């Protein structure tokens, strides 16, 4: 494999700086966020590169478990960032993290113990990238589904109350919104599965091919990952949306939006 030198990355960063300057001139108000994201990207990835080097050498289950916990907690926080009608911080974190945990960890354990089955099963070379991809995608899905749910329920609260007044159960009253939110969260993964290979070469496969893996081997892994991500994301979103929808009603099935952070 051709190794990259620091200068190669400097040239690529020149493109980002060019983009930042252009958007500054066009007054798009995005250059600051772009630069911050790029700097975070460099620091975080370099850091994880060195940490991975450490983990790969140690092959220790507890070390791996603590890394996995950090990944989960960060993803749990990020779910609630950038929401239009966010949940109260602690509730959002609790629901997001448990949905992520149940769906992603189940998929990763299935892969490690049954499908790929490396020795030992917690071999970090497999566990960390798998978990990373599942958490990242599931996080996006849950975040989108949650945003849609909270926003729609808030804007349609009168409709929901009307349906309750007519004697519908909270399940009936929120059914359409719940289904729509789950659908919204699942669109990205369904799209990327559907267009894979035709429009874009998926990232993981590209990486494996660049590093010299035979294309058909890379494809098999990519298919595995797609299926895991789709299942993990789908179940994660369903769990999160169901949990939030339930929390939006009290024990007498009255709409209660106390779990949203709304400035009154």
């Amino acid at each position, binding site marked *: 494999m051709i190794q990259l030198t620091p200068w190669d990355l400097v040239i690529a960063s020149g493109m980002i700086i060019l983009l930042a300057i252009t958007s500054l001139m066009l007054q798009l108000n995005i250059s600051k966020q772009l630069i911050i994201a790029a700097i975070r990207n460099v620091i975080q990835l370099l850091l994880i590169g060195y940490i991975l080097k450490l983990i790969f050498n140690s092959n220790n289950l507890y070390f791996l478990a603590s890394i996995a916990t950090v990944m989960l907690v960060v993803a749990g926080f990020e779910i609630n960032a950038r929401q239009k009608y966010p949940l109260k911080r602690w509730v959002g974190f609790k629901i997001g993290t448990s949905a992520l945990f149940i769906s992603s960890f189940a998929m990763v354990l299935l892969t490690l113990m049954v499908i790929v089955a490396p020795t030992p099963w917690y071999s970090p070379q497999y566990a960390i990238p798998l978990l990373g991809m599942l958490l990242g995608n599931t996080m996006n899905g849950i975040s989108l589904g949650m945003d849609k749910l909270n926003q729609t329920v808030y804007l349609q609260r009168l*409709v929901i109350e*009307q349906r*309750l*007044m*007519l*004697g*519908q159960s909270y399940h009936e009253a929120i059914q359409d919104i719940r289904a729509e939110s789950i659908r919204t969260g699942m669109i990205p993964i369904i799209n990327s599965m559907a267009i894979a290979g035709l429009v874009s070469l998926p990232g993981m496969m590209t990486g494996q091919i660049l590093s010299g893996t035979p294309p058909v081997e890379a494809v098999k892994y990519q298919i595995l990952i797609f299926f895991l991500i789709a299942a993990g994301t789908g179940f994660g979103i369903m769990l999160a949306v169901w949990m939030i929808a339930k929390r939006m009603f*009290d024990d*007498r*099935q009255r709409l209660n939006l106390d779990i949203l952070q709304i400035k009154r």
Partner: protein
Amino acid sequence: MGLTGPSGIGKSILLKALADMLPHQGDIFLGDIESQTISAPQWRRKVALLPAESQWWCETVGEHFQGYDEVLFTHLGFNKDVLDWQVSHLSSGEKQRLACIRVLMNQPEALLLDEPTANLDPDNRAQLELLIRDYQHKHQIPVVWISHDKEQLERVCQQLLTINKSHYDISQIAPEQTEEHGMTA
């Protein structure tokens, strides 16, 4: 029973609490059933609240109804075609008349009306008053009617509860009828 009083005194809140749509203190009885002893949806089908402004969530009128009731629909000037109408094309009067039918089709055993005719013209108002009176006579149920229109309350109520900041009083408008169910809060 008519319910009147200045805006913001809590008339609508009282009705919402009676329909168990708001947390409340005290027990609410319909006959000898207390609200907490049955599920909230069951209670809300028995004790139906008709708000001043109705909400519709599907494209067509028919999707909001389970079945069709010839008598109710014709009474308020509709025929079966109305089920295929687009909700977005309804006038506010049509919406309110249909909302009233929608509530009555649940066969409620008590009716809570929150300014049901506030947005209606005199013709529509008269039709709706008549429909409610017929339903009440037929089923002998309690009806609580919020209105700012004194004349309307005198037409449709036997008793009038006036709520003010410091006090409330109940006055008789016409000889009281014997009611099967009493509602106490």
